[in-house]
C-alpha cells in the first residue's frame, strides 16, 4: 500500500456482522457494514462499488438493506471468482478498504392501487429485498416471487415473507417450493389477475429477466418481445435491474453501456447503467447485446464473474 492511500481518510468501513446465507464453493454471504453516509442517502435500487485490497478490482454490489439510524448497510455477495473469494475472507471486525456509494438512480417507489409483483432470481433476490420493503412500507399489496436453482441456494425467504402480502417460491429442480422457474408463477399471476397488476419489478440473471419480459410481452404488451415494436398502452410496466461490467460507477468510463430502445428516435441508444440505471424499462432492453458484453472477460479465468454479484443482480 502506498503511503498516500494508507494515510487517507475514508478507507475503513468496518464489517459489523457477517452471515453465511449459503454454504459451499458458491457461498452467498451477507455483510453488515458501518457506513453512515451511504446509509443516510441510500434508496432502493442503488448499489456500491468496493475494493477489498490494493490493486483489487472495483466490485459493484447492490445495497441489500440499509439502516439509517444504525448507520449501516447490508451487502450480499456470491462467491464466483477471485475478487469475491477475497471478499469472502473478510470477517466481522475486518474492514472494507474502499466503499463508494450509493450509486445509480434509485428505483421509483410509490403507492399503487393494484398489486405490485417483485421477482428475484438467485442472488438477484438480494436487490429485490429493499424494493419489496419500500413498496410494502408504503402500503402496497406486494406479490413476491423468488426462485433459485435448488433449495440450498435460496436466500432471504423469511425476510421477504415478513414484508410481502403474498410470496411464491420456486426451485428449478423442485427441491423446494414449486418446481420450475419464477416465470411460471408470473404466468399464473398474470392470468388469474388479468388487468389487476400495477407493475412488475424483476432482478436476477439476464436469462431470467429476459424471460420475465417475454412473459409480460405475451400478456400485457404484444405477442412477442421486440423493443422496436410500438408500445401497447395497456402494457404493465416491467422494470429490470441490469448488471453490466463496470469500472468507476460514476459515468466516467462508459464500460457499462447498455442498448435501450428509444421510441422517439426509433433506434437503440447507449445508456450508462451506472448512472442512467441500473433499473430500466425491461421492454426496451437489448438483452442479447448485454449478454455479449457481459461475456467480454470470460476467458480471463481468474476474473470474478459478475453474473451473480454485479450491481442489481
Amino acid at each position: 500500500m502506498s503511503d498516500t492511500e494508507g494515510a487517507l481518510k475514508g478507507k475503513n468501513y468496518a464489517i459489523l456482522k457477517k452471515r453465511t446465507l449459503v454454504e459451499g464453493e458458491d457461498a452467498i454471504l451477507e455483510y453488515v457494514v458501518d457506513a453512515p453516509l451511504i446509509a443516510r442517502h441510500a434508496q432502493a435500487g442503488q448499489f456500491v462499488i468496493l475494493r477489498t485490497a490494493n490493486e483489487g478490482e472495483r466490485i459493484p454490489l447492490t445495497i441489500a438493506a440499509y439502516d439509517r439510524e444504525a448507520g449501516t448497510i447490508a451487502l450480499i455477495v456470491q462467491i464466483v471468482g477471485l475478487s469475491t473469494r477475497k471478499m469472502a475472507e473478510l470477517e466481522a471486525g475486518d474492514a472494507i478498504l474502499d466503499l463508494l456509494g450509493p450509486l445509480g438512480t434509485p428505483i421509483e417507489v410509490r403507492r399503487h392501487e393494484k398489486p405490485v409483483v417483485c421477482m428475484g432470481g438467485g442472488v438477484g433476490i438480494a436487490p429485490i429485498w429493499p424494493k419489496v420493503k419500500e413498496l410494502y412500507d408504503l402500503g402496497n399489496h406486494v406479490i413476491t416471487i423468488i426462485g433459485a436453482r435448488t433449495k440450498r441456494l435460496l436466500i432471504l425467504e423469511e425476510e421477504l415473507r415478513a414484508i410481502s402480502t403474498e410470496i411464491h417460491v420456486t426451485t428449478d429442480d423442485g427441491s423446494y417450493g414449486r418446481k420450475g422457474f419464477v416465470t411460471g408463477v408470473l404466468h399464473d399471476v398474470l392470468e388469474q389477475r388479468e388487468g389487476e397488476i400495477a407493475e412488475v419489478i424483476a432482478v436476477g440473471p439476464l436469462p431470467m429477466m429476459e424471460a420475465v419480459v417475454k412473459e409480460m410481452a405475451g400478456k400485457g404488451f404484444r405477442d412477442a418481445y421486440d423493443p422496436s415494436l410500438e408500445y401497447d398502452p395497456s402494457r404493465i410496466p416491467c422494470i429490470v435491474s441490469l448488471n453490466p461490467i463496470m469500472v468507476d460507477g460514476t459515468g466516467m468510463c462508459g464500460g457499462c453501456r447498455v442498448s435501450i430502445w428509444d421510441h422517439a428516435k426509433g433506434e437503440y441508444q447507449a445508456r450508462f447503467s451506472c448512472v442512467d440505471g441500473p433499473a430500466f424499462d425491461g421492454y426496451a432492453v437489448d438483452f442479447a447485446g448485454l449478454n455479449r458484453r457481459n461475456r467480454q472477460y470470460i476467458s480471463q479465468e481468474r476474473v470474478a464473474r459478475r453474473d451473480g454479484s454485479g450491481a442489481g443482480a
Partner: protein
Amino acid sequence: MDREQARKEALKQKTKSPMPMQDPEVRVHNFSSVELGYTPEIAWTESSRCIACKDPRCVPYCPVEIDIRAMMDAVRLENYEEAFQVICRSNLFPAITGRVCPQESQCEMVCVRGVKGEPVGIGFVEKFLADWARERGIRPKADMLPPNGKTIAIIGSGPAGMSAAADLVRLGYGVTIYEALHRPGGVLIYGIPEFRLPKAIVDYEIDNLRALGVEIVLNTLVGRTITMDELIQDFDAIFVGTGAGLPYFMNIPGEQLNGVYSANEFLTRANLMNARSFPEAPTPIHHGKCVGVVGGGNVAMDAARVSKRLGAEQVDIIYRRTRDEMPARRDEIHHAEEEGINFLYLHAPVAIYGDEEGWVKEVEMIRMELGEPDDSGRRRPVVVPDSNFRRPYDVLVMAIGQGPNPLLARLTPYLKTNKWGQLVIDPKKLSLDGKEAAVAAGETPPEIPIICAGGDIIGSQAGAGGTVIAAMGHGKIAARTIHEALQERPPKSGTAPSADA
C-alpha cells in the same frame, strides 16, 4: 571552461538542449518514463540560454503565474533549491506541470530566444527542478496565512481541485477535497499513463498538499454520498472541479461490440486499475494484436502508446484531418511516431463489424479531404465519395473527446449547464451565482455560499480549456474569487462532514 565562458557558449546555442530519452525500441516494452530528464549540467546550460529579459514575455503566458525569470536566474546561480521554491510560490505541482504542460503554446511560444532558433526549454528546466528537489526530499516552503476558521469544500481531486486547494490552504482556509475514486489525482491518475507521468510523482505532490493541511476524503461522490445542499450548509465556499468524465462515442453502428472501448475506460483500466499487470492485478484489459484508436488528441496518443506497450503488433491512429490539424502536442505525436504508431490521416470510421461472438473484427472507414475552414478555424474534413474500405482490428478505442461529467449537475438542479453540459460561470471570476443557488436550494442558509468551478467541467469558458495547466489556472482564479468574497464574512460554525470512516 569557466562559467562565464560556458554562459557565452550557451547564449550562442540556437537550439534547445535535447532531452535525454529512452530509446524507442526499448521503451515500447516498458512503462517507465520516456523522458529521462535533464542533468544539472544540462539544466544549467539551458537556463544560461535565457537572456533574462527585463520585461519577460514568458511569465504572463504561464497560467499558474510562475516567475520564470526568477527561476532561471536561480538556476544560473546553481541555486536549484531556491529555483524550486520560486516555482512553488505559485505552483505546488512542478513535477506534474513540467511533464504535461503544453509549453510550446504558452511560456515557450513567446520566448525571445524562439525568434531566431528555439525557445528556452522552460518546461524541461521546471521538470528538472521538481525532480531534483524530490530526490533530495526538499518540500515546498509554504508561506501560510494563519487559519481564519473558514472552510472550503472542493469537489474532485484533479488538477483544478488540487490547484484551488493549494492556494486556499495557504490563505488560511480549512480545505477538504472530496474524491469519488479510491485514489486522488483525477485524470493525472486514471488518464495520463505512467510513461508520461509516473503515479509516484503525482502521489508525492499530493502529499505536499496534504502536508499543508488539506484533507482528502476518498470514495465520496458528491451528489450521492454527500449532497450539494449538505456542503452548502457546512462550508463557506465550494469549488467544483469534477472534470470531463463523460466519454463521447461516434454513434456509428457496432460501437456496442466487445473490444470497443472509450479512451476513459481503456486508460482507467490500464492506469488506475493497473490492468497492464493482469493477472497480478485482477482487473483485465483486452490488449489486441491490431488496435485502432480514433481521434487526434493527447488522449488518443496515450491510448495508442499504451496499446503498443501492452503488446499490440499494429496500432493505428485514425484521424479525419492531417497531422497539421492534430490537437495533440507535437512532442507526443513525435514520440508516438518514434514508437511505431501508424497514422491514418484523413480517415474516419463509419461502421464497426463484429464476429459471431460479438467481438470487433473490422472497421469500415471512409477517406476524407480538407475543405474550407470551419468554426474551429481548422479546415473541415469532407468525405471522399465511394472511398469506403474495411480494415481488421480486434480492439478499437474511441478517443474523440470527453464531455463534462453530468452527474453533479443532474443531481443538483440549481447548477446551471450550457448546451455542452458545462457549468455556467462568470468567465472572469469562475463563480456561479451563489444567491440563485441558495434560493434554489429551498432555504436560506446562514450565509449565501460562494460556488466556483474550474477545469473541464467549465470547458473553455475561461479561455483555453482541456489541459492540466488550464485547469490549474482555473483553480488559482477561483481561489482568488473565493478569498475576495469571503473577506467580509464571518466563518460558519459548521464542521466538515467526513467520509464514513
